[in-house]
């Protein structure tokens, strides 16, 4: 009985992984529209996060692997990520349940 339950669990897990692969492909071909409009607000939000002041991260997290000084191009990319994060919050509310 245990073996049957285990097999069913494994099958369900694999199905979930397959659905996630499909979702990643769909996301790649049709990413959410990240508004680039309010770049100033995004920059201010990022500066708040980087300031290290308690509470200034506004509930967000940020980490970088092998991080050095952020270049201008990295900063613009980070703003793009922030815009994408905001878009994800509104357009893919169920993504984490996939």
């Amino acid at each position, binding site marked *: 009985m245990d073996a049957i339950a285990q097999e069913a*669990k*494994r*099958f*369900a*897990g*694999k*199905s*979930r*992984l397959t659905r*996630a*692969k499909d*979702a*990643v492909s769909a*996301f790649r071909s049709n990413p959410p529209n990240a508004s680039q409009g309010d770049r100033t607000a995004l920059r201010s939000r990022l500066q708040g*996060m*980087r300031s*290290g002041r308690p509470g200034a*991260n506004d*509930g*967000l*997290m*940020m*980490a*970088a*692997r*092998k*991080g*050095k*000084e*952020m*270049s201008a*191009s*990295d900063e613009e*990319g*980070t703003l793009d*990520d*922030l815009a*994408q*994060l905001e878009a*994800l*919050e509104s357009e*893919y509310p169920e*993504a*984490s349940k*996939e």
Partner: protein
Amino acid sequence: MTAVLTAAERILQSLGIGTPQEIDLEAIAWTQGAVVNYRPLEGCEARILGSARKAVISVNSRSPERRRRFSLAHELGHWHYHRGRVLFCGNDDIGNFANDAMNPERHADAFASDLILPNYLLAPRLNKIKKPTLAAARDLSDEFCASLTATLIKMTLSNHFPMVIACYNKTKRRWFERAPMIEPWWLPVRALDRQTFAADMLLNGAAEQNFPRKMPADAWFDFKGTDRFEVTEQSFLLPDEEILTILMLPDRAVA
């Protein structure tokens, strides 16, 4: 006895992953609420921005594939352990194994290692390996699509072999890892001894050895009585004029 699964291994098993080839990190990230971008990054290998439920991970598109995989898995480690925190980690925080166990970078690295090289898939393969040679490590790193360094660290810490791995540059030891079974006084020397094959490779441009070579233990360790033992060494060159050596120790080194 069933081994206790780590957080990363539980995620893999919850997705029914039973082979290294099934470890699709982008799909795994999606199941955790994270999406992945590949773009040129100048100041880091990867970064993550996350809210309470969602995250965006950017990975340096200019890095080699296996480094990109480890970086992505590392950021997923931050996502698992450090939501709501802002962490800035410098170059020296990574791969610096002298850092204390509370360092969030170590947590993220351990998570990455377990996600890419999970023990429940690795252990059966290690059981079939007689000696931890470079060839054996390369086969595993290819199968798991992991870097050779990450694979060797995992092999060492998995405690299957009486081994130490040590990384040196031309002047000093950079870091080392030791199998937990090894007596604690077996610490690799602080600078490469010139009689070692590793020094010959790093300093004189000698070719990589095809198999582990015997060497008096006192070329690698300097506690009293080391001269009674012999070890084997086998090395490969890393970028930036560094070398990583696998040392197989005698039975007497085992606690």
